[in-house]
C-alpha cells in the first residue's frame, strides 16, 4: 500500500537521480579523502583497496536502483504515467551509477 502510494507520487520521479547524486558526491569525497590521507591506496598502485571498495559500493548502489526500478514498474496505477516514468528514471540512474564503477576498475586511485 505504502509502496504503491509512493510510486504514484511525483517525488518518486526524483528517487533515482537523488540516489545517483548522493553516490556521486560520496564517491568523489571518498576518493579525495583517501588520496589526501593515504587511506587504502596501496602506495598508489593499481588495484588498491579503495578501488575495490568503490567498485563494490558502486555495484550495490546499482543493484539498489535496479530493485527500485523493478518495484516501480510493477506498481499498478490508473494511467501508469508516474510509476512507469519513475521506473525508467531509476533504471537510467542505475546505468549511470554502473558507468561510474568503470574508472575505479581500470585506474590507479591517486595519480
Amino acid at each position, binding site marked *: 500500500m505504502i509502496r504503491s502510494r509512493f510510486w504514484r507520487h*511525483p517525488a518518486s*520521479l526524483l528517487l533515482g537521480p537523488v540516489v*545517483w*547524486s548522493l553516490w556521486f558526491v560520496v564517491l568523489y569525497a571518498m576518493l*579525495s579523502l583517501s*588520496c589526501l590521507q593515504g587511506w587504502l591506496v596501496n602506495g598508489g598502485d593499481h588495484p588498491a583497496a579503495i578501488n575495490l571498495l568503490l567498485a563494490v559500493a558502486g555495484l550495490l548502489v546499482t543493484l539498489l536502483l535496479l530493485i527500485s526500478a523493478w518495484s516501480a514498474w510493477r506498481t499498478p496505477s490508473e494511467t501508469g*504515467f508516474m510509476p512507469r516514468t519513475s521506473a525508467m528514471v531509476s533504471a537510467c540512474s542505475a546505468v549511470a551509477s554502473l558507468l*561510474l564503477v568503470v*574508472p575505479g576498475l581500470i*585506474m590507479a586511485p591517486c595519480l
Partner: protein
Amino acid sequence: MSQAPSAEQQARNDRFERVWGNLPGWGTLSAVNHTTVGLRFLITGLIFFLVGGLLAMLIRTQLALPEQEIIGADLYNQLFTMHGTVMMFLFAIPVLEGAAMYLIPKMIGARDLVFPRLSALGYFCYLFGGLIILSSLFLQIAPDSGWFMYTPLSSREFSPGMGSDFWLLGITFVEISAISAGVELAVSILRSRAPGMSLQRMPLFSWYILAMALMIIFGFPPLILGSVLLELERAAGWVFFAVEGGGDPLLWQHLFWLFGHPEVYIIFLPAAGIVSTLIPVFAGRPIIGYRWVVLAIIMMGFVSFGLWVHHMFTVGIPQMAQAFFSVASMLVAIPTAIQIFVWLATLWAGKVRFHLPMLWIMGFLIVFVCGGLTGVMLALVPFNWQVHDTHFVVAHMHYVLVGGMLFPLVAGLYYWLPHVSGRMPSDSMGRWGFWLFFIGFNMTFLLMHLTGLLGMPRRVYTYEAGLGWGWLNLLSSVGGFVMAIGVATVILDIVLHFRFGRKASPNPWQADTLEWAIPMPVNAYNFASIPEIRSRHPLWDQPELMRSIPAGEHGLSQIEDGRRDTIGSDAVTGEAREVMHLPTNSWEPLITAAVLAGLCLSLLLKTYLLAILFAVLALVACLRWSWVNGLHPRIAPRDRTGDLPLHSRTTDGPGRWGMIVTLMADGTLFASLLFGWLYLWPVAPDWQMPEQSPLSVWGLLGSGLVLAGALGLWWRQVQGAVSVGGLLLVTVVGLAHCVALVLTAIEAGLGPGDSAHDSILAVVLAYLIFHSGLTTLLTGLQALRVRQGYTSQALPYELRVLHPLWGYTVVVYWISIVVFLALPAAFGGGA
C-alpha cells in the same frame, strides 16, 4: 475567425480589465501581473543583450588584425569580463525567466503566478542590479577578472579597484531575482494548474520550466555564498580563498562551477522547452515520446550537477576523480540525445510547415548538435588539457549557448509575437535576419575552433603576426559583424511588425496549448473563465474552448469583491482544491527593491552605517509587506467562492509551498557552507584546526536546548492551542536563545581576519543568529496577528506557513553543532 464579443461578454471583459489591469501613468510601476512583469523582463533582457553584443563587437574589432592597439589590455579585460557577465547574468537567465513568467500561467490555465508581488520585486532587483553592474563600465572601473572571477586574480591583492566589488555585490543582488523567479515558477506550476490538468497532461514546456526553477533553487546558492565570502575577504579581510591563513583559491572554483555548470542547463532547458512546444505544432502532430522527454529533463537536471569539475581538469585533481567527472560529462549527452531524437522523430512523422519559427528551430538543431559534439570532446580529459583556455573552448561555449538558447529564443519570439501584438511578423524580412545571423554566427565561431586548435589562448587582447591565426581572426570578425546585421534585421522586423504586420487570426499556428485560447492581443487576466482540461492537447482535443472560455462558460467567470482570483489545484492530479486570492497592483516591490539597491550601493561605497540603515529599512519594508497578507481583510475579505474555500482558509496553501521551496534554496546555501568547511579542513595547505574549539560547548548546547524548547512550545501552538500568550512565550524563549547565541559568539573572540577556520565559524554563527532572529521575529508578528484575528485555531494558515521555518532553524542549528563542534573534537583538533 472569432466572433465579436456579445454585450454581456464585453461587460464582463471590462470588469475583468478594471480589476486586473495596471494603473495608468506612473502607476504602471506598481504593476504585478505576470504578463506585464514577464514582458518587462524580456524587453530589459533584450536591451542588455544589445549592450553585451556591442561589447562583443568591440572585442572582435580589436582581434580582427594582429598587433592592434585600438583597445588597450586593461579595457579589453573589462570588455570580455562584462560581455560574459552581461550575457549570462543579465540577458540569458532573466530573459528566459521572463518568457516563463509570461507563458506559464497562460499555458496551465491560470490567471497569474501565485506570488505576483515577488515577480515584481524580482524584476526591480534585476533592473537595479543590472544598472549597478553596468555603471561600472561607464565609470571605467568594471570588473576585469573574467566572468567567473577566479581567485586570487579577483582578490584584493590583484584586483585592488572596485571592479570585483561591483561584480560580487551586483550579481548577488541580481540573484535575488533568479531565486524569487525559481520559487514563483515552481510553486505556480505545481499548485495553480487548471482543473483536470494532471502532471501527465501538463504541457512539456511546463515540465522544462519546473526543472529550470528547481535547478535555480539548488544551483544559485553556491554562487551566492561564494560571492558573499569573497566580498567579505575583499572588504573585511576575512580569509576563505587566500592560502595564507588556511583558505584555498580552489574553493572559489568549486563554488562557482557548482553553480556555473548547472547554469548552462538552466539556460538550455527552457529553450529546449520552446523547441518541444514548437515542433509538434509545426509538424501537426503530438510529440513522439512525451514520457521519454520528461525522463530526459529529470536526468539532465540531476546529471548537470555532477559535471562541475570538468571545468577544473587542469587544477591537479587525481586522474580517477577526473574520470568520474568525464563519465558524468559524457552521460549528460544521453538525455540530450533523447530529446534530439524525439524532435527528429516528431518532424519525421509529421507534415512539417516551414514557417519562420521553424527556420530558427532548424538552425538550433544544427548549431546545438555541433556544440554538443565538441562538448563530448571536451569531456575527454587529455583533449581538455590540450585546448584548455583556448579559443576552442570559447567556440564550443558559444555553439552550446547561442545554439542552445538564442536560436530557440528567437524562434519562440516569432512564434508568440502575435500573442502579444495581435499581428504577424514579416516572413521575408525574418528570413533575411535568420540567414544573416546563421551565416555570421558560423563564420565567427566555426573558425574559432581552428584558432583554438592552433593554440590561440582566450582573453588575450592582441597577438603577434605570423602565427597563422591572422586570417582566421579577420574572417571571425567579419562574421561577427554579419551576425550583428542579422540581429539588427530581426529587431527591425519585430519593431516594424507592431505597425505594419498583418492582423493575426485566432490561434494563427493551429497550436495545441491553452495560451492561444486567450484573445489577441493579450489581456491582463488571461481567461474570462477557467476551463476543465481533459487532454494533453486542449486546443486540438477540445476546440470548443476557443469559444467557451471567453464566453465565460467555465469556472470563476464572475469577479467577487473586486479581487483577483485563480484556481489552486492538487500538485499531482490537478483537481481543484481552493480559490487563490492574488494581490493587486502594489508599490511594495518597487520600494523594497529600491531600499535593497541602496543597501547594495552603500556596501559598494563602504558606507557601513548607511548600509545598516538600509538593512533596517529593508526589514521594515518586508514586514510591512507581510502584514497585509494571508488573512488580512484587505487581502481575504470572504471565506469561499462557490464550492471552493479560499486558500487562506486552508492549511496547505501556496504560501506554505513557497516557504518550503525557499528553504530548499536556503538549505543548499547552508550545505555549500558545510562543503566549504569540509573542503578546506583536509585540503587547504595552511589550515589550522585548534586543539580546542574557541566556541563554548556549554554555551552552544544550552542555547540549542532553549531553541528546542521554543520549538516544542511552537509545536503546541500549531497543533491547535493557538493563543496570543502562547505565541509570545515562544517569542520570549526564541529571544533567549538568540541572546545566548550572540553571547556565545562574542565570548568566542573569533579572529576571522587571521584564519579561515575562524572566518567560517563566524559566517556560520551569523547564519544561525540570522535564522533564529528571523524565526523569533516572525513568531512575535504572529502573536500580533492572532490578537488582530488574522490567525486563530480555526484559521491556522499562516502558522502552517511559518512551521517549516521553525523546523529548518532547529535542524540547521544541530547540524552545525555536529559538523563545526563535534567533528573537529572527534577527528581534527590540532590538525
